[in-house]
């Protein structure tokens, strides 16, 4: 039995290792396009930009660990096609790779701006270690850095670059920062941190075009022109689902899979950020762009590869670190929730209730200890008393 995993990122590594833990015998081949062995991406916009070479969150394994686990690692190799009938992959080096079962863990790539001037070499994106090194090498005091997009990555880069002495301008088309995943009060808090640090934050300000000059880039925005030495485009991610699409597997902005990570083909699975996962409680498929999904959804995939069902059923969770603060986002952040704040000094938890006073989501600011009780509250669907929720002296666990 031979399982081939395409994509040697976090989800690829997790799938390979979990599978080895469940099955000592099978052949496991992990193929990745990047030069580096698997690494976790969160430090790329944080510690790596600040010049740390080996932050603890980056490489989860020493290079030798794969051989020790009898996981064959093929790096610098791009898979270009899947022949499902012949159960074979084509790689860019002309190699043909047979498989019995296949896992697509190809992640996502940075979305590109499709406006004039976006091909200039001073326009960068951040997804990989190579990207982070290229960006980090150019950040220096006094550099005028423009960031298009005030999402998680754009804001983290703004915070890191400001710390390095760059003059940072952030351009955001929406009317608040991180509008996709936090309530208004949290946007306002983040907004304040960035402005206080000296970031010029322009909201409702789409970037319209880039005019590359010899000395700098002129950026035309909805609110006038800006000169920058470098532009980082951080406007979201696009799943690498083309291999699946070409093989005829159902794809809708991500590879459609069931709760066990199985595609429509019983021998083919998808793991991590590329997967759009069936969530029965929501009655729809959802794709997550989080460390969490890359870490935990492979548990379902590895079990299914061994014939056991361990459906993926987690409350979504991710975090961002900016200016030494840790923000964790739990559950749903849809419009129409009522947000209730609990504060203990600098620590803050904001809890989102639906119309029936059930907890749907939460934002934790330097307050990770609230995550587990809140997960329980979300899972229980219990109706809450607003006054008790607001009362910081009542421990959340007492409300579970």
């Amino acid at each position: 039995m031979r399982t081939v995993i395409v994509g040697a990122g976090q989800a690829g590594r997790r799938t390979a290792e979990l599978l080895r833990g469940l099955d000592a015998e099978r052949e496991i081949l992990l193929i990745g396009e990047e030069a580096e062995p698997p690494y976790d991406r969160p430090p790329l916009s944080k510690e790596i930009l600040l010049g740390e070479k080996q932050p603890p969150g980056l490489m989860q394994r020493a290079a030798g660990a794969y051989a020790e686990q009898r996981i064959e690692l093929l790096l610098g190799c791009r898979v270009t096609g899947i022949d499902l009938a012949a159960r074979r992959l084509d790689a860019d080096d002309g190699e043909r790779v047979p498989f019995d079962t296949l896992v697509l863990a190809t992640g996502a790539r940075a979305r590109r701006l499709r406006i004039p001037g976006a091909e200039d070499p001073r326009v960068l994106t951040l997804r990989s270690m190579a990207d982070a090194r290229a960006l980090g090498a150019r950040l220096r005091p006094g550099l005028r850095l423009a960031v298009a997009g005030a999402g998680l990555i754009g804001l983290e880069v703004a915070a890191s670059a400001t710390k390095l002495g760059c003059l940072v301008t952030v351009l955001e088309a929406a009317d608040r920062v991180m509008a996709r995943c936090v309530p208004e009060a949290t946007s306002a808090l983040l907004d304040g941190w960035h402005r206080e640090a000296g970031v010029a934050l322009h909201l409702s300000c789409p970037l319209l075009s880039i005019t590359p000059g010899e000395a700098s880039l002129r950026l035309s925005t909805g609110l006038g022109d800006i000169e920058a030495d470098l532009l980082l485009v951080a406007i979201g991610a696009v799943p690498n689902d083309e291999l699946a699409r070409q093989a005829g597997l159902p794809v809708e902005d991500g590879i459609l899979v069931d709760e066990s990570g199985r595609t429509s083909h019983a021998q083919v699975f998808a793991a991590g950020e590329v997967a759009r996962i069936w969530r029965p409680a929501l009655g729809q498929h959802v794709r997550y762009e989080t460390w969490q999904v890359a870490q935990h959804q492979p548990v379902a995939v590895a079990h299914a590869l061994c014939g056991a069902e361990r459906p993926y059923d987690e409350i979504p969770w991710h975090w961002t670190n900016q200016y030494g603060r840790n923000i964790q986002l739990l559950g749903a952040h849809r419009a129409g929730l009522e947000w209730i704040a609990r504060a203990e000094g600098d620590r803050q938890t904001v809890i989102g209730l639906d119309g029936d006073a059930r907890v749907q989501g939460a934002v934790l600011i330097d307050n990770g200890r609230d995550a587990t009780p809140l997960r329980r509250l979300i899972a229980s669907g219990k109706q809450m008393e607003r006054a008790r929720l607001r009362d910081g002296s009542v421990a959340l666990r007492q409300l579970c």
Partner: protein
Amino acid sequence: MPESWHPVAPADSFEDDAAKVVQIGETRIAVFRLENDFFAVSDVCTHEYALLSEGFCENGKIECPLHQACFDIRTGKALDEPAEVDLPTYPTRIENGVVQLQFDAG
């Protein structure tokens, strides 16, 4: 021979599921009461960097506030990923009603 027992706090001042933290040189140690016994473990998560005393504590387990790895307070054992390395543990005793822990610097 340096004195290796360090005072933590009066035994009756401990609350359930809340650590008392002592810093000895560079080392931060979290001390917990579980029923009538006291346990001392490193306060720093073995995954990345986070203070476990700021995490959620329940049923003899402490959960890291950053990525929610859990550790057994009695043994220091890492119970689930992403942490894989156990926490150092330190002996404790009670002298005149005060909890002490044993730590040898260097």
